[in-house]
């Protein structure tokens, strides 16, 4: 079995790679490979799309590698598990509204919009540890408890149009989307690879997930 982390020039993949490799070793479920090659992406059992920075840049970089976008779509269509992290999660949406209007994968209906806390003293980016409010049960959140903390750093959020797609939120002058899921796909706005034991637990759950 293999887990592929998609590399499309979007920042630091080292901690993502190491955290997935560690949990993969613990579970004995094989290799974690970082790759931008569509042919390797096609061989993934579990596929991870990370991402930091702006939606527009990530989307452009993803589109710049011939065949990559399509290979990711094929993986998801085939029913195999997929996980998006941070901007990688935002790209699961219909549209991103950061630096213009950009199409996402459209798996989770909804837009990615600037956070606008109702308390104007709250700073943007939303940066640091926030406690999760779990709205829907999900196998990838097994053992993760209400109010466990996760690490966030972002200025935009995915607002799912369909309530059932929403998995967890955090409070930051109103509800902020922390995780979404539908069928064989899951996405977290927070960084599991930076969220110490809570994050490692989630990664382990994802690697053993059979949707």
């Amino acid at each position, binding site marked *: 079995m293999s887990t592929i982390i998609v590399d499309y020039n979007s*920042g*630091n993949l*080292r*901690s993502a790679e*190491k*955290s997935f490799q560690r949990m993969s070793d613990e579970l004995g479920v094989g290799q974690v490979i970082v790759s931008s090659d569509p042919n390797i992406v096609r061989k993934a059992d579990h596929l991870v799309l990370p991402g*930091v*920075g*702006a939606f527009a*840049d990530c989307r452009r970089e993803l589109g710049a590698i011939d065949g990559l976008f399509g290979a990711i779509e094929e993986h998801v269509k085939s029913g195999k598990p997929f996980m998006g992290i941070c901007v990688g999660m935002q790209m699961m949406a219909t549209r991103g509204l950061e630096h213009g209007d950009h199409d996402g994968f459209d798996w989770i209906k909804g837009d990615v919009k600037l956070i606008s806390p109702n308390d104007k003293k*709250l*700073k*943007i*980016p*939303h*940066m*640091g*540890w*926030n*406690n999760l409010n779990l709205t829907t049960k999900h196998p990838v959140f097994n053992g993760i408890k209400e109010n466990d*903390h996760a*690490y*966030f*750093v*972002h*200025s935009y959020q995915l607002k799912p149009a369909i309530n059932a797609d929403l998995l967890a939120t*955090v*409070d*930051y002058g109103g509800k902020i989307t922390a995780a979404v899921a539908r069928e064989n796909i899951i996405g977290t706005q927070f*960084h599991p*690879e*930076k*969220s*110490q034991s809570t*994050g*490692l637990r989630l990664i382990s759950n994802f690697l053993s997930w059979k949707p």
Partner: protein
Amino acid sequence: MLKTRIIPCLDVKDGRVVKGVNFVDLIDAGDPVESAKAYDNAGADELCFLDIAATLENRGTMFDVARRTAEQCFMPLTIGGGVRVPNDVRNLLLAGADKVSFNSAAVANPDVIAQSANRFGSQCIVVAIDAKTVSPGKWEIFTHGGRKSTGIDAVKFAKLVASKGAGEILLTSMDRDGTRDGYNIPLTRAISDAVNIPVIASGGVGSLDHLVEGVTKGGASAVLAASIFHFGDFTIKQAKTHMQNAGVAVRL
């Protein structure tokens, strides 16, 4: 709700922690990675490594530190010191840093912040501001470890770098650094109020009340300290419990 972050900062020189971490039995107290692991286990919210003698020749040692830390610590890591151009950011991010901190180079050329933020995103661009009080309610930027005055107003500069796309400000009071007299609260408050990005208070912590004041009076989003943690005066847990009892929300 979002919690106030507590960030231990380690000064690194030639790949070694300068003063060492003495609150636990480490096989090698001078190894930044061992220290990082100890703080990871202790529940620190983030870590900060400052390369205090960064030169072109010894850059490699910090990349190695970042690489080894990212392999073992699954928590946010900021690295600063000697960061001059966007490619320095790229190399540190690739090595394993989550955020990269600019200091003198941002003062010399604030556009480097815009270039870096556009390329890598604001979330990973920190600007470290070292400020000294020049008259009541007036603070000036100093560079080169506080030795060189610039004549630049700290509040104006903070606004400028925020507008250029900095994601966070690491604010150190040069008047207080090393004194254990507490953060410079008026400075911290002035900068926190002036910008809409998170501000990390730094410089002068000697007691746990100082950490509380940085947040309640200074308006900081995060508090950074070095010696009180490294020397084992207080644990991260004690600091967090103290802050929680004082009404500051922390991750416990």
